[in-house]
């Protein structure tokens, strides 16, 4: 049996939005320490890695590991129904293939979501090290992505000399966005060496769905390697995305 209560239902709504932006189906693993999920998008370009520890919940009760397979579209539609100032209760009995989702505010409303049997094979996170780590406001990153989308469907991200550059070019024109430490927008930079890589804008903008969870994004990457994008909600837990790069075709 698994039962968890979140003080603010909108946290769960945002978590679901951040996952459903990439994947249609996935398996949460609930265990005594909390809930986690790792899933890849169907095209296998990006991965989402979510964790919500026991401490992030108002109350949390789970005696043993339990897979909870869900269709994210369905879950997202249920979560759309929540309002402000509602508590959220998640509950699954051992023998039932359903998850109870209860909103507790002025009234108590209970949805029951049929679960999917997707097995519980866990993915491992990509094994990569990063040469550059950039901390920036999620909003600034989102604006830069929107700028680039005007002209292309992928961007070149560069980190060098304590600057971050986001550049795109295509038949529709070119754009360059520079984010510096001096302007205060680049909150911190750590880099072993210069790094640059190409990434799909389609995926980047999908991944910005998690900006509702945290105002700050941490972007890590190396030259021509996958990017890792972290959002750490103040209420605890994490949403981490991995995105494979694009490469110049021969």
């Amino acid at each position, binding site marked *: 049996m698994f039962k968890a209560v979140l003080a603010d239902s909108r946290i769960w709504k945002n978590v679901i939005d951040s996952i459903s932006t990439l994947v249609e189906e996935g398996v949460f693993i609930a265990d005594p320490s909390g809930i986690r999920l790792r899933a*890849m998008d*169907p*095209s*296998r*370009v*990006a*991965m989402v890695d979510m964790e919500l520890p026991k401490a992030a919940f108002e109350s949390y009760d789970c005696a043993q590991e339990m897979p909870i397979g869900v269709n994210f579209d369905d879950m997202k539609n249920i979560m759309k129904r929540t309002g402000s100032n509602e508590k959220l209760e998640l509950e699954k009995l051992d023998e039932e293939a359903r998850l109870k989702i209860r909103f507790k505010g002025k009234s108590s409303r209970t949805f029951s979501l049929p679960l999917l049997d997707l097995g519980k094979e866990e*993915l*491992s996170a*990509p*094994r*990569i090290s990063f040469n550059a780590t950039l901390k920036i406001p999620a909003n600034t990153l989102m604006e830069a992505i929107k700028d680039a989308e005007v002209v292309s*469907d*992928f961007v070149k991200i560069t980190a060098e000399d304590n600057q971050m550059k986001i550049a795109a070019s295509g*038949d529709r024109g070119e754009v360059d966005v520079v984010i510096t430490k001096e302007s205060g927008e680049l909150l911190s930079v750590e880099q072993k060496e210069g790094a640059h890589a*190409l990434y*799909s804008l*389609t995926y980047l903008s999908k991944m910005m769905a998690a900006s509702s969870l945290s105002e700050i994004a941490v972007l890590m990457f190396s030259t021509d*390697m*996958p990017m890792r994008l972290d959002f750490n909600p103040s209420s605890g837990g994490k949403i981490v995305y*991995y*995105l*494979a*790069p*694009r*490469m*110049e*075709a021969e």
Partner: protein
Amino acid sequence: MKAGVLEGKNLVLAVPTASGKTMVAELCALKHIMERGGKVLYLVPLKALATEKYEEFQKFTKIGIKVILSTGDFDYIDPTLGRHDIIIATNEKADSIFRHRPSWVNALSLIVADEIHLLGDGSRGPTLEALLTGFRLLNPKAQILALSATISNADEIAEWLSSVPITSNWRPVPLLEGVYFQQSVVFKDGQHRKIEGEEKDPVALLAADVIRSGGQMLVFTGSRLSATSLAKRISEPVRKRLKRSEERKLMDLSSKMLRMGERTRISDRLAMAVANGVAFHHAGLTYEQRRAVEGAFRSFLIKCVCATPTLASGVNLPARRVLIYDYRRYEAGVGQTNIPVLEEKQMAGRAGRPKYDSQGEAIMLARSEAERDFLLEEYVLAKPEKVWSKLGAASSLRSHILATITMGLAHSQEDVFDFLEKSFCAYQYGINSFRNAVLESLEMLSSEGMVKSDERKLIPTALGRRVAELYIDPKSAVILRNGLKIRRSGIPPISYLALICHTPDMPKLYVRRRELEALKAFLEANSDLLLYDLPEEEGFECEMLLEEIKTALLLKDWIEESPEDGIVERFDVGSGDIYSYVESAKWLVHAAHELAKLLRCEEALTPLLKLYIRVENGIKEELLPIVSLRGVGRVRARALFSAGFTTIDDLKRASPTELNRIPTIGPETIRSIKEQVGGTVSKAEWSMVKSKRGTKQLSIEDYE
């Protein structure tokens, strides 16, 4: 050396490797083509050797000689073969070509049979023998040049082929043969040499010693497992002797090899060894991996290769020192046996690189004084065995007899005996030694409706003809036919897979004791799916059955798109093995499909055709519509499917930009897909694709 070979005399040349056999063959071929406008067929026992020979012969294309490599499916004959001067083929492929009787067979003026000592090989020998016997009947004027390793009855083979035997022990690089025991090698001539070094492990000691003097070592082991573990064992001692620049190049090579094909624990281990200047080499590796190892060894980058004996009979990869680590080998039904001297000499013959080494050393490894004396006596000083024909075995007889009849080389029982009278088997044992086996085979062929007897004449039936062309054992044809006769709808792929695995033509996986129960349980639970009857009692047949089931399950995993690494682990095979099981399965599914056509089993046609494409590509049924596109294999088809493009129509409607978002789909592929499916594409997008420049999305899976 030229005992009339250039005048057109038949010749059997039994001399050591790398002593100029190939050169004699080349001169002879040139003479035929340039002076007489002739045509040459060059026979080799292995595909890898065919490729090697093909590359060697490329130098003649400059002077206008057309060379072609005939590979591919047994039932397909490249129609352009007749337009080439030199045709290179494996024995099996050539045999299957002859069954189709192309007109150019009569135009052949020279046939080169490489590695003719394989006449004594149980599985390959009979084909080579029947091929040569039949060819001499079809085209008695052609010259035959047979090349052999050193054997003791080359004169017998020569007499059989009405040719002149030439035997010699001369080698361009002298060979020292010896036995290692306790830091010292005793050579053939009684000479001793102490091997100095700090290593305790004799293999590491011998490796370090030869590398110090700028040489390389080839180690022959009895099994893949010991090749792999030995490579690991000597990794550290070898790495210590590498130069800085070599270490860097090896690191590059190692990471390049990791990116070859799907990643498995075997490829991981290989890459790790290669980084240390060591490699293992066996049939479990993929073709690319083997080629990469061979290339790096030839360029002196890899210092030591631990290989199974397939390498000794296969590609030419000489080394200054050859270490024969195992002289015992496991053989099914027999247990541990000592390998033949012929095989030991083949391995030893790999010692010494022409142009680089002034002498080669072949060393066997002794663990005791008694063993040292045994090895000296029984191998180092011994002469290779005689080669004995294996054609008399029933399984090879029925197939070759059927071919003789369908090719029109025999019209009656007497003709069949006349034909066999000319075989090496009859030469060695006399025709009477296998008369009964021949009669039984003829009986089987007529009772199964492949040959009709009319008066005293033997006439091939349509079934018989097709079976011979399909190049399957008549017994396999019977099993397939009986299975196809079971008519019910919705027969699942596993049933057909189990059926082809039930034929003697399908190689089978070895079943381990711990797997017995699970396979038995599977068999019992699924016996209604089988298209053949189960034997009544347990025993040998039941064990064979479990091997068949295990093999069928591997194929099922393959067409369910299981990752290679999972298959490697579950079935205890290498990637290269998966490939060879898939090749055999493809051929037999094709044969089943052709028989179904002939027997008018209409309901089996579509399922078998689908199964063929699924086996060929290793895909689930849902990918069938898109995998037919050129340039789209299993990986890209899956990527397209996952991204929602599941039909040709979807692809017609898709914009290049959309397709470009999918991993593995670059501009080149998009252009090819669009050219094939049609549909409208905006000018701007088309120019992006046309220019070939652009970017390609990678997959996050590449970094797991």
